[in-house]
């Protein structure tokens, strides 16, 4: 109750929603946006604002909506110093990190949802497990396939428009740690898989048989990135099914600890 009152007080003290400038974000690199996204999630911003930035009343980062016009410097200052007498805390991020978070917030507004259909989480799970055949490659909290990244925390890490885009146009925005790779060994054997790491001399991946594999580059005839085997669901799922599956994915957060301990 006390939190609710605080939220109302803050909301009424600030000015009406306003679309902010995105000009300065144009100078940021893709890596800055990734770093900004990482800080946004890791430093607890998403805990209150949500992955889509729309959980605090009067604020919606995905719509470019703030409670009053904000320059990048304003936002950076708020991120670092917080807002006194409100739940918005100060943080110990550096100026550079704050600028990267700002760049990420600005970028959120440019990604628009492709559908207006409202999804259903429970139906989405049925599609995910059934028609979508998602578990043949993906796992959730370590259970399922291992040919593609685990999705147990995807609702925390990715926003709704990102999830939609990944389903409709999976090649459009491959995360750096979600890339696929092909090696051709000297005997002609080809192995493809989810790239886990590479360095000057070695390549590591999970192959199509879900085995961890390591290759020495000098033992290979060729090697390189390939397109993600993730199919587009544009034509194989209905708009309602897509909305449902996105709703389900958005609900996936890392499960909290199982309570136990002394006294039990």
């Amino acid at each position: 109750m006390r939190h609710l009152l605080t939220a109302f007080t803050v909301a009424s003290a600030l000015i009406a929603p306003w679309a902010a400038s995105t000009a300065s974000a144009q100078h940021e690199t893709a890596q800055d946006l990734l770093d900004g996204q990482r800080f946004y999630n890791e430093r607890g911003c998403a805990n209150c604002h949500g992955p889509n930035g729309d959980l605090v009343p009067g604020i919606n980062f995905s719509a470019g909506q703030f409670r009053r016009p904000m320059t990048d410097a304003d936002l950076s200052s708020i991120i670092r110093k917080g807002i006194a007498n409100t739940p918005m805390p100060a943080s110990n991020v550096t100026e550079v990190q704050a600028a990267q978070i700002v760049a990420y917030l600005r970028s959120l507004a440019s990604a628009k949802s492709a559908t207006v259909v409202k999804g259903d989480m429970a139906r989405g799970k049925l599609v995910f497990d059934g028609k979508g055949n998602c578990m043949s490659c993906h796992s959730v909290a370590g259970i399922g396939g291992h040919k593609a990244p685990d999705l147990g925390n995807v609702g925390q890490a990715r926003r709704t428009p990102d999830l939609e885009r990944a389903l409709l146009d999976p090649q459009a925005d491959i995360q750096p740690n979600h890339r696929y790779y092909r090696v051709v060994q000297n005997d002609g054997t080809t192995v493809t898989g989810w790239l886990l790491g590479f360095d000057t001399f070695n390549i590591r991946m999970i192959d199509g048989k879900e085995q961890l594999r390591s290759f020495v580059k000098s033992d290979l005839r060729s090697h390189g990135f390939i397109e993600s085997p993730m199919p587009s669901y544009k034509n194989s799922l209905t708009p309602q099914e897509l909305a449902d599956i996105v709703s389900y994915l958005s609900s996936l957060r890392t499960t909290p600890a199982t309570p136990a301990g002394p006294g039990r």
Partner: protein
Amino acid sequence: MKLKLIVLLVLAAASLQAQVTFDRILSGVDKEPHNWLSYSGTLKNQRFSPLNQITTANVKSLQQAWIWQARSLEKFEATPIVLDGILYTVEQPNNVVALDAVTGRPYWTFNYTPAPEARACCGRLNRGVAILGDTIYMGTLDAYLVALDAKTGTLRWKSKVAEAKAGYSITHSPTVVKDKVILGTGGGDGPIRGYISAFNAKTGEEAWRFYTIPGPGEPGNETWSGESWKTGGTGVWNAGAYDPETNLVFFGTGNPAPDWDGSSRLGDNLYSDSVVALDADTGKLKWHYQFTPHDELDYDSTQVPVLADIQWQGKPRKVMLWANRNGVMYVLDRTTGEFLKGKPYVKANWLDGFDAKGRPNRVKFPTKEGTAIYPHVHGATNWAPPSFSPRTGLFYVATWENSGTFAREGQFPGAIPGPNTRQTTMGATIIVPFYNNPETEAIGVVRAYDPQTLDYKWEFRLGDITWGGTLVTAGDVVFSGGRDGYFLALDAKTGALLWKANVGGQINAAAMSYAVNGKQYISINAGSAVFAFALP
């Protein structure tokens, strides 16, 4: 036909990576010498590798294969496990990493930050992970058990073992028995009541719990005066052993708390400083043996139990070998707990013998003037695991010779000079460390003991003390090292130095061995890094 066989073998190898059954863990290196599926290679804790590519004749050619640098600067006490070319270890305090065992390059890392209230007494560290099925298990400094997907490092579940705010922690490698993951709670230098818990490996639900201090109405509670049983410490912070013939799981237990002043906890303080033998399915106590009744010298008995089948007085006997922190080496019957033999294996003056049941007769007590005590609180060994070779029949222990002085607070006039005199929060006893006394200054030494006599056949003296254990291989090479940062290869039969490598940091862990593509590797965690060595 031959091709078919090869294909089958390849397919078998592929499926091996996916599932580790308990039978595989139980037989461990005995059936799969190329893998290292538990803390000590098998649940007998012999830390013996049947690999014999590296021998006393060729070990001098051993070369560094790779190094993996951790980001943490905490002490690196973990022993890795290896499954089919994948090496899993823990970067302190609780980040798990899966490395390619041939190149040392990572497949994945799992980052875990313990809660701020996790405050272990003696370093933010971890001694290793366990595996069952396709899941990696780790106990965390803030007293959780976490289960990770072995392929990707994804967190499957996390189960609270104990309350970190109350002083509990977990630092040891979990012990897998059948469908359960078994851990003990550390923190016994503080006012906890320790316990050992078994968790369902699939779900993380607690299956049973054994308190290392009996509660009211239970046998042994009378060995604690007043209410001292509630806060008597007795942590568990090292891996256990398992005997399938009796279905008993064995754990060593830590010191009673407060550590150095027993006046508030009169009695034997069961089951502190003991080995407890528990039914692996129920956690019920079947037998125990207490090494140090009413301990006032912090003689934790948290060494790994080493199970061996040896000839004893002319007959085969299933025994447990134990080189204890209290300076005494023991041979126990592991089926019944019967005391077969006990004998100081370093200079030890706190006892002058045993009664018929193996209870030690303590003869040294704190005095106003200060009592000289051997070994000192640091002990003859600590948690570092020893090894046993079925080939040589010898028990290899990295140990300390050391001494100190102890006296009660208030009785101690400060007459013992030296800059290192100190008071700790562990109890109202002052112990003067061993420094600055050339006659009694501690040394580290690797020794090979004969379990029949508990005398040593050979020794190799180190230039500094050691927190490293030993590994022995079927090539009859013992690998060990210590605080001065040399990783050593010794002849298992003679103790002769065969090879050494400067690893540039303290060795605070025991080595292990594995093989990939027919090549044997020796791996040691030292300084802040994992090292692997192999022949050219």
